[in-house]
């Protein structure tokens, strides 16, 4: 399984190792993400209602099922524009996506596609929410 690297604004999605799996088995894809130095994105559970969370949603799973996304522990960071620390991600981290290969999946390659939405800020400026394509390619044995 692999991901094609995608970049948009101040966040980049990297490429993981290739994985292949048998029909009916469970697989986990690690999706590496890097936020530009000096920037942060809101976590999947922002500390304020008005903040836009990091969110990965699958648009097509192919022969995979599930796709539950796991997010890393967030950081609590204080900025000039916030009275209290905000729940954010910064630097490099990974998301995990848990799939099950469909029992009826035909052998061969496939791809699951998703959209990673985020909204980035630095210490005094914010940038409009952006969406990055996430493509998880897999090989059914």
């Amino acid at each position, binding site marked *: 399984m692999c991901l094609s690297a995608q970049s948009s604004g101040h966040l980049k999605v990297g490429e993981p190792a290739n994985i292949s799996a048998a029909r009916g088995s469970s697989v986990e894809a690690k999706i590496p993400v890097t936020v530009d130095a000096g920037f942060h994105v809101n976590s999947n559970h922002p500390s304020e209602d*008005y903040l836009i969370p990091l969110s990965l949603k699958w648009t097509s799973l192919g022969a995979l099922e599930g796709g539950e996304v796991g997010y890393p522990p967030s950081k609590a960071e204080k900025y000039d*524009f916030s009275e209290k620390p*905000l729940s954010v991600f910064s630097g490099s981290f990974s998301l995990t996506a848990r799939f099950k290969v469909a029992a009826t999946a035909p052998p061969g390659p496939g791809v699951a596609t998703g959209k990673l939405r985020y909204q980035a*800020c*630095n210490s*005094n*400026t*914010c*940038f409009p*929410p952006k969406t990055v394509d996430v493509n998880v390619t897999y090989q059914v044995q």
Partner: protein
Amino acid sequence: MLAFRFSAISTAALALALLAAGCGGPAAVKAATLKPEKERKTAPDFALKDADGRVAHLSDYRGKVVLLDFWATWCGPCRIEIPWFMDLQRRDRDRGFEVLGVAMDDEGWEVVKPFVAELGVNYRVLIGNDATTQMYGGVDALPTTFLIDRSGKVAIVHVGLASRKEIEDGVEQLLQSPVPVVSSGAPEPVVSLGAK
């Protein structure tokens, strides 16, 4: 990158001239880092709707000092500045000052109206669009605040959370500047504030 990035040029000469002429007045302010008048460019006109559906043109405000704030509800730094702008609107509106807020939320009034109501925003809020931001040099970082003089020219741009004092001093300095003589001729051509 904004091609039309205003450099922080001190207007000490202007401040000195004002002081020398006794024009400092009771509210003499520290010279804000406004662009010298000769170097200012005309702020592009736009037509954007307010919450009542009325179209607002920047040109409607010619003769006033205008603080044009590009912001969004999801922008934390913007939320810090908005109460400052409300205070300025309350304090200086009768002196020929207006704040215009241009909201850049994709969801438009659905999210902007509740926010404006909750905060009690006391100035005109408009919904922005890409065409308008492009005219202003491709505003991407929020907040971005343009301070526009009575002649409709941009005196300074603040990108990101600004210093409240610097904004207040800039407004005060522009309000204390002589009111320009209105030309009866054709209006000066409006130029784009620069492509990226």
